[in-house]
């Protein structure tokens, strides 16, 4: 004889990730570092922006990077030209970093003395949005070559971020990207999001970005 029993519950499916993210945040706070999760589609310029950021910040601040990639360590090698503390997480088939990956690294490596920890997420505008890592700030890059419709097409990540950085702005004269439209869409999804427009190539707008980062420690 068999019988069926219905059980009612309310359990967050990503509760474990969120608990670990909270745990990571406690570590970050104890270490006295600022953790910034940088997300974007592939090719938006995360690594290039980090190169520029590290070249400016690392003279005055102790910086570390966690580099998330599905395969290889090409980006990590680029960043190691600026700072030694670049930690690679190779996710294999996973399209995002999760809190457990960060927790493992936090327990395995030494981050004492770090002022800023930059976490370069796997290039993807969908999956990383679902997995908080414990970061203090969530930054989304949107390159002008991607199109001004991206906030409307990927609303979750733009709704749940603190900052949007428009990259490759030197290319604005050559593409149909409508900055007003893009900013309006972001404002409609997330009125608290701060926006920066910059080009690493011709060094415009980078100071505003750097000042925002430095402002978190002042």
């Amino acid at each position, binding site marked *: *004889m*068999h*019988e*069926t*029993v*219905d*059980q*009612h*519950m*309310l*359990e*967050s*499916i*990503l509760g*474990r*990730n969120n608990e670990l993210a909270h745990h990571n945040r406690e570590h970050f706070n104890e270490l006295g570092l600022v953790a910034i999760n940088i997300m974007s589609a592939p090719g938006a310029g995360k690594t290039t922006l980090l190169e520029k950021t590290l070249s400016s910040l690392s003279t005055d601040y102790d910086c570390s990077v966690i580099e998330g990639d599905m395969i290889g360590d090409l980006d990590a090698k680029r960043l190691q030209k600026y700072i030694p503390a670049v930690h690679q997480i190779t996710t294999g*088939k*996973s*399209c*995002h970093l*999760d809190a457990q990956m960060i927790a493992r690294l936090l327990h395995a490596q030494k981050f004492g003395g770090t002022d800023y920890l930059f976490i370069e997420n796997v290039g993807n505008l*969908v*999956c990383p*949005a*679902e*997995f908080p890592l414990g970061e203090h700030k969530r930054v989304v890059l949107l390159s002008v070559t991607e199109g001004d419709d991206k906030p*409307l*097409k990927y*609303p*979750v*990540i733009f*709704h749940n971020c603190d900052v949007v950085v428009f990259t490759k702005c030197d290319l604005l004269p050559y593409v149909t990207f409508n900055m007003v439209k893009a900013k309006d*869409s972001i*404002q*409609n*999804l*997330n*009125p608290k999001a701060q926006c920066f427009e910059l080009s690493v190539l011709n060094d415009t707008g980078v100071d505003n970005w750097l000042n925002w980062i430095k402002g978190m420690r002042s």
Partner: protein
Amino acid sequence: MHEATIAQSILQILSEKLLQICPSGQIVKARLLIGEFRNIDVDSLSFSFDTLKKFHLGISSCNLEFETIPTEAVCQKENHIYHPTFENTFLCEQCQSGIGKIIRGEELDLVGTTILSSSMENDQHA
């Protein structure tokens, strides 16, 4: 495809529940609430779950049942509650302002299971 990670999380939760409630039983149904304002594709989640479940004792015949929760938001200007969608470019139909706060539609919860158990086991527990 992060749905595979989410499927793995569901299986982990179900395995723990089964162990607590009825170790020799089988979970035949799990009910989920999925908010519309989550990046979750239900078909991908079902596919991932069905692929992975065969490796989990007592869950291999479990089917997922979904309830999608529509997004509800308070608008930025007039505090209207509205349904932000791609079609209305996430704007409030009444005052054309954007999302102030999302109050529903971000759920990603396990809300129930149906467990098949032998009455013999229930008698033993009784």
